[in-house]
């Protein structure tokens, strides 16, 4: 009886053993491809700001998960917001981020990214990389990668230990609290995008 009963456990055992070994390499490959193919386009110094902004918007919609980022960045204010407000916020966030980062990519020509490692968490992974700028300063740059539409999408960037989502969320939260509601933040975002 004993051996048979052991056999029953075999599949579980195998699964448990195989789990860590067969770690999902998808997120790492996703970031590698992004660094090799998408990043050089975004940081190409010869393209004008308008085009860069449009390009980044495309990348933002394809390789990032803006719905999730919006949710993470608004935190509790997201949970309280009406669906229409959420939709409005998501649109504004897209405009805001594409403007902000398009400008930042201007100075990043020649950025080289090497993957340091990867860790999996519940439902998402962290791809740890080191980004070396043209002038040689290495920067620790970590990508939070979630699943999206059967593929992968970035949901946060952690630069030298600083999560952009957390920084943005504290900022947004401070504005919502000060203005006494989400509308205050939406107005401020709209002004920033227009200005």
């Amino acid at each position, binding site marked *: 009886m004993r051996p048979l009963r052991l056999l029953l456990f075999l599949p579980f055992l195998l699964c448990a053993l195989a789990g860590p070994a067969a770690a999902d390499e998808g997120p790492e490959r996703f970031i590698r491809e992004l660094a090799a193919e998408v990043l050089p386009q975004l940081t190409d110094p010869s393209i004008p700001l308008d085009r860069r902004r449009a390009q980044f918007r495309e990348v933002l919609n394809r390789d990032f998960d803006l719905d999730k980022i919006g949710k993470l960045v608004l*935190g509790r204010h997201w949970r309280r917001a009406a669906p229409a407000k959420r939709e409005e916020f998501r649109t504004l966030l897209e405009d805001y981020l594409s403007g902000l980062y398009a400008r930042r990519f201007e100075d990043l020509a020649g950025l080289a990214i090497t993957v*340091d*490692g990867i860790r999996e968490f519940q439902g998402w992974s962290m791809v*740890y990389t080191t980004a070396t700028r043209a002038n040689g300063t290495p920067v*620790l740059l*970590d990508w939070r990668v979630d699943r999206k539409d059967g593929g992968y999408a970035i949901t946060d960037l952690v630069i030298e230990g600083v999560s952009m989502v957390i920084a943005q969320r*504290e900022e947004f939260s401070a504005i919502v*609290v000060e203005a006494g509601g989400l509308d205050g933040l939406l107005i401020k975002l709209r002004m920033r995008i227009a200005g």
Partner: protein
Amino acid sequence: MRDDVEHGPGMPGERGPDRCPAASGRLRGLVCVTLLACLFAVAAPPPSGASEEQDDPVVNDPLEPLNRVVFAINEALDTIILRPAAVVYGAVLPDEVRLGIRNVVRHLSLPFTFVNDVAQGEWTRSGETAQRFVINTMVGFAGLYDAAAKEGLPHRSTDFGSTLAVWGVGDGPYLVLPIAGPSSVRDAAGLVVESVTDPVDIAFRRADLDSMPLIRAGVAAVDFRHRNLDTLDDFKENSLDYYAFIRALYRQRRAFELDTDGDRYLTGGMGESGEDYAYPPPRPDFGRSRPPAQ
């Protein structure tokens, strides 16, 4: 804010609250006790005060109104004094001279770094700090030239706030100090201790060079400001609430440097079902010499 912390993120987590008074020194014990007493006295008001933030465990800033005032004054001082000084500093002095100045500033921080290395029980690191100090004093023309870095002893800095963290003192509420800027109750206490125990400053005073500690701090501030000119300009221009942004930056950076779980951010319900977890997770130590991506 200190950006020149180059001891990597992944110091092994073998530090614990029980490390505190273990080793030598009546004086350190005394300092430790006095400090803890101060900390508890200052930290007395519980951070749960701000009614708006009750379900948001991320922001520990009960003094926010006061902090914002100090922050605004600091910003004004930065705009009219520090930033222009940093711009001039960058425009007037050639790169090599600035590098030399930076090396000296860092060099003078080493004795106090050594004290902290020892207090943190980091024996290997304290030895490296001492070696670095000796090499750069002898070969590097009193620190002007960083010869030790070429010998595999790169600059690393730590401070008394970090030592307190290693001893298990939590960071406490966020604090904006006049002139010194973003801090926490713990790190502010660390600065107070540093201002009276820094060996180099003590030596300056003994030698009747009473203005040297101030000059040294001023040069360090201008150097720091100059190195962060573009970054801070970008942050200031692009942030929607500069105060909140800098607060998030400081606290995350500090948690990252110290790698203590106590300081790590709670996400305030960032999980799928609104649960909290420490985020971002501690970065694993991959070592410095990992082979490049294939």
